[in-house]
């Protein structure tokens, strides 16, 4: 191969963005089409630098918008290449139309989404508004809690996405600034290990295979549209999670690092539990341990896979809990939070029927402190002690001004 290898230390101090950029280099992406936006910019910038310095054999396509960036990725993926890009917030919002094209055309593209608030008011900091905007788009969505995850999940993403039985695009989410710009120790793979894990790209129905001409992006009206969508949904519901689990198993054999579709922490005998995503999962784990020292049996459930939604795995993880809080880092704008609704759906048919309440927190990067989580676990224990939910179903954590609560 016509590129240089890079010597990495076993542990590098990288932020989430650089960790993702290094993973893109090691996976040897053929095409990155990108329109940089804060806080994801350093991912595509990093790829461009590796390319210019001769560490990658590929092509960086500069485009005029995020809509064009994803369109470029779609074209390159349809042509038959390994393709990735990164975006955040407003850029993600502009990409939405093409996200549905990518998944409907069954193109294995990896999109690093560095989660950031959506305007107005303009805000560059981390919340999950953009992640939530993509949740019906037909993509696989993986969620990182720290820079190490952001690195590792990129390898998982290519492995699953490019599998010929899957052929669906995949987002790797990380929290803007809290992961993307926070440097921590990242255990690395060598270039050979990293590339070996994802393997050579194996094209399928590629447009540049002139011996076997194909058409991509066709029109289907009511004669076939429903069948395409139903089969895509079927594959998401039945094929993807086993493939993700297999990729996690292989990755553990390679690296020693274990990932699970639903990340359970101290859930075996937990009375009270919070369900959350992103960096909050790790902070909540630390607080849960401290609550146990105070006699409250606390646990944490983190979603590692947001789509396809791990309904059965979450039900299994939470069946023994008595009181549960969901933490949504996105304004539901006129409804209970997404996690509250999804969890209500998967807990409703449990005989144990745990008490469920929803919290909205951390919008626009507002800090989720350990103190907030101590108060939350304490409140959940109060629900257990009272045998009923003692608060309104929806509350806001960390917002100034009059206390907001609904339902």
């Amino acid at each position, binding site marked *: 191969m016509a590129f240089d290898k890079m010597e990495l230390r076993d542990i590098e*101090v990288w932020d989430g963005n650089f960790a993702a950029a290094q993973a893109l280099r090691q996976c040897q992406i053929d095409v990155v089409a990108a329109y940089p936006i804060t806080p994801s910019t350093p991912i595509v910038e990093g790829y461009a630098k590796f390319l210019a310095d001769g560490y990658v054999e590929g092509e960086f396509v500069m485009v005029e918008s995020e809509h064009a960036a994803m369109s470029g990725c779609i074209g390159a993926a349809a042509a038959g290449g390994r393709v990735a890009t990164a975006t955040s917030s407003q850029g993600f919002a502009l990409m939405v139309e093409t996200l549905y094209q990518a998944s409907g055309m069954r193109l294995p593209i990896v999109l690093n989404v560095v989660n950031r608030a959506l305007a107005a008011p303009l805000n560059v900091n981390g919340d999950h508004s953009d992640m939530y905007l993509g949740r019906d788009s037909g993509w696989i969505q993986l969620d990182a809690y720290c820079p190490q995850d952001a690195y590792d999940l990129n390898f998982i993403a290519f492995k699953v996405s490019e599998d010929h039985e899957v052929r669906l695009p995949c987002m790797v989410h990380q*929290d803007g600034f*809290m992961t993307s710009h*926070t*440097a921590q120790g990242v255990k690395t793979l060598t270039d050979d290990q990293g590339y070996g894990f994802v393997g050579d790209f194996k094209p399928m129905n590629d447009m540049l295979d002139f011996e076997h001409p194909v058409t991509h992006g066709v029109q289907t009206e009511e004669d076939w549209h429903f069948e395409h969508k139903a089969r895509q949904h079927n594959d998401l519901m039945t094929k993807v999670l086993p493939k993700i689990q297999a990729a996690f198993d292989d990755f553990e054999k390679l690296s020693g690092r274990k990932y699970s579709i639903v990340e359970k922490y101290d859930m075996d005998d937990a009375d009270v539990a919070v369900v959350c995503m992103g960096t*909050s999962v790790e*902070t909540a784990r630390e607080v849960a341990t401290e609550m146990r020292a105070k006699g409250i049996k606390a646990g944490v459930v983190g979603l590692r896979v947001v789509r396809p939604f791990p309904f059965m795995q979450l039900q299994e993880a939470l069946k023994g809990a008595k009181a549960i809080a969901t933490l949504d880092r996105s304004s539901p704008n006129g409804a209970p939070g997404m996690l509250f609704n999804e969890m209500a759906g998967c807990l409703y048919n449990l005989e144990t029927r745990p008490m469920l309440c929803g919290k909205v927190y951390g919008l626009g990067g507002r800090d*989720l402190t350990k103190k907030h989580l101590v108060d939350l676990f304490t409140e959940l224990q109060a629900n257990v002690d009272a045998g009923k939910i003692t608060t309104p179903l929806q509350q806001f954590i960390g917002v100034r001004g009059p206390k907001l609560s609904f339902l």
Partner: protein
Amino acid sequence: MLEIRWHSRAGQGAVTGAKGLADVISTTGKHVQAFAFYGSAKRGAAMTAYNRVNDQMIMNHEKYMEPDFVFVIDPALVYTSDVTINHKENTVYIITTHMSTQELVASQPKLADKKVYTVDCIKIAQETIGKAIPNTPMLGAFMKVSKMYDIEFFKESMVRILGKLPQKIIDANMIAIQRAYDEVK
């Protein structure tokens, strides 16, 4: 857990300094975290950066911190920012200033009864590196005050971290680190 808060202006190198320090500490087997608050802040705006160091994996991602050390790398921030916010009883301050510790404390009553060290990182940086980039000298002063590592080990580590810069700049940084180590009071 050791926690450090940096007070800086965007462009003075606090983020690079915090990440560089984390990198050095990581090589000794400890777990590290380095992050900053800057959002869309432009060059010259007051900002803060943070380090966490622990023997175990660092799970805490809250931005709230009660620091063990506060580094102030721009002299005016002692007056325009609250550098003592969320302090602990034993928080140690290392502050860039042309004044003596006594004069500084007299000019900012909030620092009275605090453990304050001073060093003129701006002047040292100007005289060695040729630019007012006070981040590496601050780390030299920190090595002296905290006795965290032998200064020679620290300088060798910083040579690796600054690796991509021209040799002349690396050499100047080493002199700056040593001077701040020697001059902090």
